[in-house]
């Protein structure tokens, strides 16, 4: 078994083991063990990657190729570069944190953890695939369990939210599939055989006329899951209804699939299409960044604040990708990672606050710093990360995006960059507004004086996510250089 396929097989084994468990206690132990193994594998992969990279300068390393369906030339073809290694690490951490946060999931625990792990298989598979068809299949595997997870374990208008989310993401998938087939049927433009292999297609000169048609399809197909304006409305409702761990995984990992797909498929395979359409999508991304921030300003439900904040932050990822240079791409990947950790932690904390106070309305909360200090302090720290305070992960990502975007001298790019940079002020306002109302001030409700303290499993989940946020923010060099180096061949293909 190769080092990458383990990321598929270990979760599958975990699921098989889960089938034989009885009750919550067994289910969570098995899930936790599976999660810990995956995290160890992901950390090990980082070291293995550096070692391999020292002797092997291929674009993708640890590659493996198995023919899956010969007739259409579909392969199970996998490999990683610095970008996927970083995202795999993100996934492993968020999944494990999600297991800890779901420590008290009393309702159908076995089925819950199985669905959660199915979702993670989809994500792992997506990040290691270099075959378009396999990639698409994993994409669907990741999206489908969402319906069950929200529909069964959700709160509030869960059926509505689950349906809305699934329909919009499925609609996007259909568009994406058309785009992918379009690429496939043109992968013989230079006279070779039809192929789904990304690295092979990248060598083919797909005609501009084709790129012009299929780039928007692929871009939108992926970007919907990254909450591209105006296709973001599934996200606030979906998050609000989802159980905590699902929100964490969804916002922390699943929404990153969009940016990754745009970068790996849309930009890399259809570079001329990207150049042709970039102005249009830049406008949408800029709107998303500002619009999401202002919309967050007005929300009173913590999950909605965070959902709109995600629209804004992920708009920044798409914006950075469209800036088409190494620095801004590096920023896009770093922002994906940073947002993944931050937002997962945000949702975890919101879940903890909700489970104690039974409300997510900031105006009903107040003075929480006094009653649940640990959770509140962490909330402030993540908030500061979210508004881009140096020393935390958000700053590192944003500065790469801004410096990268500023390398364009063209007026259109300049103006859109400056608009996007201004979002840092609005972000500060909505973060501090929520923190001020909810955490500070006098304690609003007598009943809050005796809230249960934070438990060990909650602390573990928090620390798992907090350590990378601080780590990235304090010492970004190794990570940023690892990604930067991997971006070189991609940026060459585009320019």
């Amino acid at each position, binding site marked *: 078994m190769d080092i990458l396929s383990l990321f598929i097989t270990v979760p599958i084994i975990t699921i098989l083991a889960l089938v034989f468990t009885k009750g919550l206690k067994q289910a969570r132990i098995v899930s936790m063990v599976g999660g810990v193994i995956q995290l160890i594998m992901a950390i090990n992969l980082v070291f293995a990657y550096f070692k391999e990279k020292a002797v092997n300068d291929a674009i993708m390393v640890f590659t493996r190729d198995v023919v899956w369906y010969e007739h259409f030339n579909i392969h199970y073809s996998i490999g990683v570069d610095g970008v996927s290694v970083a995202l795999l690490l993100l996934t492993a951490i968020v999944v494990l944190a999600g297991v800890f946060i779901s420590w008290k999931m009393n309702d159908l625990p076995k089925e819950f953890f199985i669905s959660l792990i199915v979702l993670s298989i989809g994500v792992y598979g997506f990040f290691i695939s270099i075959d378009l068809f396999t990639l698409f299949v994993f994409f669907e595997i990741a999206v489908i369990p969402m319906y069950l997870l929200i529909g069964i374990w959700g709160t509030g208008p869960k059926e509505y939210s689950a349906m809305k989310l699934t329909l919009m993401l499925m609609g996007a998938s259909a568009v994406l599939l058309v785009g992918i087939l379009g690429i496939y049927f043109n992968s013989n433009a230079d006279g070779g055989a039809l192929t789904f292999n990304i690295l092979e297609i990248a060598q083919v000169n797909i005609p501009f006329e084709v790129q012009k048609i299929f780039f928007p*399809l692929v871009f939108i197909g992926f970007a919907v899951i990254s909450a591209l304006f105006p296709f973001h409305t599934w996200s606030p409702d979906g998050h609000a209804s989802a159980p905590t761990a699902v929100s964490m995984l969804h916002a922390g990992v699943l929404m990153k699939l969009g940016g990754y797909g745009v970068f790996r498929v849309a930009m890399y395979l259809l570079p001329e299409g990207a150049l042709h359409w970039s102005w249009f999508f830049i406008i949408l991304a800029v709107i998303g960044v500002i619009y999401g921030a202002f919309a967050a300003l007005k929300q009173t439900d913590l999950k909605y604040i965070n959902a709109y904040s995600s629209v804004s932050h992920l708009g920044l990822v798409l914006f950075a990708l469209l800036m088409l240079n190494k620095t801004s791409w590096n920023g896009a990947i770093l922002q994906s990672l940073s947002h993944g950790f931050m937002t997962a932690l945000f949702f975890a904390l919101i879940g903890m606050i909700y489970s104690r106070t039974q409300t997510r309305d900031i105006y009903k909360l107040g003075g929480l710093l006094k009653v649940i200090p640990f959770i509140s302090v962490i909330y402030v720290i993540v908030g*500061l990360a979210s508004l881009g305070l140096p020393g935390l992960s958000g700053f590192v990502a944003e500065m790469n995006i801004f*410096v990268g975007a500023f390398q364009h001298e063209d007026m259109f790019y300049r103006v859109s960059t400056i608009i996007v940079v*201004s979002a840092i*002020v609005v972000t*500060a306002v909505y973060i501090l507004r929520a923190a*001020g109302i909810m955490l500070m*001030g006098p304690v609003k409700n007598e009943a809050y004086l005796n809230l249960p303290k934070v438990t060990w499993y909650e602390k573990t989940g928090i620390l798992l996510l907090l350590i990378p946020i601080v780590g990235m923010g304090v010492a970004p060099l190794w990570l940023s250089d690892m990604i930067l180096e991997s971006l070189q061949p991609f940026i060459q293909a585009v320019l």
Partner: protein
Amino acid sequence: MDFSYTILIPLIPLAVFLLLGIFNQKIKPAVSGYIGVFGLLTSAIISFYAAYQYFFVSSKVDGVYQTFVEKTVWMNFTDTLRIDMGILIDPISVMMLIVVSVVSLMVHIYSRGYMKDDDGYTKFFAFLSLFTFSMYGLVLATNLFQIYIFWELVGVSSYLLIGYYYTKPSAVAAAKKAFIVTRFADLGFLIGILIMGYYTGTFDFEALNNPEGSAILNWASTSFMGLSAITWALILIFIGGAGKSAMLPFHIWLPDAMEGPTPVSALIHAATMVVAGIYLVARLFPMFYFVEEGFALNIVAYVGAISSLFAAIIAITQTDIKRVLAFSTMSQLGYMMMSLGVSGYDGHEGVGYMASMFHLFTHAMFKALLFLGAGSVIHAVHSNYLKDMGGLRKYMPITNITFLIAALAIAGMPPFAGFWSKDEILVAAFEHNQLIYYVGVLVAGLTAFYMFRIYFGIFWGKDKTYEHTPKESPFSMTFPLLVLALLSIVGGFIPFSEFVSADKAGFVAHLNYPLAAIAVGIGLTGIILAWVFYKKENNLADKWANAFGTFYKWSYHKFYFDEVYLFITKKILFKRVAAPIAWFDKKVVDGTMEGIGNKTVLASEKIKGMQSGRVQDYAFAFIGGVVVLAIVFIYLWTNN
């Protein structure tokens, strides 16, 4: 000469912060106070050692103080642009190390008394250490991005400390306001950095400031709307500085920041963080001076002068003594900016630069003293308002004497520290810009007046009867007062111009007797007026206030700046931007999506029969549909 040991100066407070922050619950309050003070004492000793080594051991080369830089890569952006972290030792950074060390150490000692009965004692010292770490980092920064990083960190420490009494809504609001207003100014700073990086290809101070370097020589290569891109960058960077240093129109956060504990006001909002803006301009002074014949520097001069006068006028009518001091700080910061703005570069021409740094140094001492003295008074009478004070000289002799010394220093009376630095500022203004000189003289008079207004109001005036007899503060609080008072007396005798000057060569400054006489005369007038109005209880002040009705009202209401800001944020941004966007999102964007969904449901009602419930059928339909779509698209492009 090796200065790499100076990295310990910021690292020690960082370690203290982490220690106190992480083991918050487990450390006894008394112990945490000692840890904080001891940590800072170590940093201060190293700072003094570094200053001694820099100025007296490592000699000048070619008559110029050398710059020592040690740095390491923190993050790479492009092949040329990157963020370094490191230390830069030159005259102004060494001078700032001394300022930060002295004031922070005094404030740490003082806080052990002042915060004695507070629940969050350990947390308080943790935040103080975090602030001191960030401030040291800012001072030692080697490049624009590093200074920006620590700039944000001092901002957040300030946020945490203003909001220290977090159960008080006014403190929470003040903290938020301070952060957001400065953040808005920092937006300018950040864009300025981006422009600077793009057009000069570097963030390094050394490369930027070199008068023979490409950044300065090629400033004219690109222009935008009539000005060079570099000038734009400098103006934007100055906006960041104006935000931190509470220049117009970004000053509104500073008076509210007085909600924080008084030692914090002394350290952050009087002596150190608020001078970061001045330090930033001084740091980039060669650029400000040489690029486009000092266009941006002129803006600095005028913004400084206007802010200085504006704040002095407001300070006259405020009744909360901490707010008077806050506006006084703003006024003095304006003085320093103005002085930088009128400075030349070589030798005695650069007297404005030298005077600005000198005033920064002396002001830090006497303004910290004023704040700590005010804290001592507030500690005794449990109120910030003048109306609750009076005749305190009998109860608090040490506070009285030290406050008087500080007031004389800020009023520019010889031989106190403020006299010397203020005189140099007025000399610089007189030699370069007469208009600004007259503003400076006027402000000097106003300063003396408002300062003695509160001095007499607190320690003389009416003999109040107090519910609890006020008593002198404990030694932990009076000791810092005495040390700072001593520095406010002798600080002016330091031959500052020989150590700090724009061209780093140093020069010998002489007292300009006629100008000094005028300044002292104006200051004395202010003091005498205050003496007439406020020494004994009388209704003279009220009469004058009525005579200047409108003017008094505008001054008292701080020229209605807060109201204007409130209108813009609440009425326009919240009600006219954020609320409509939230509504638009719910009704229009989401509504459209829902509409599409509902139409689909209607359509599906009609073709219900096709719903067999078998997954295979759906899968077939899905794939089939996709293939059809694909064929349509392929057809479209082949026929193009």
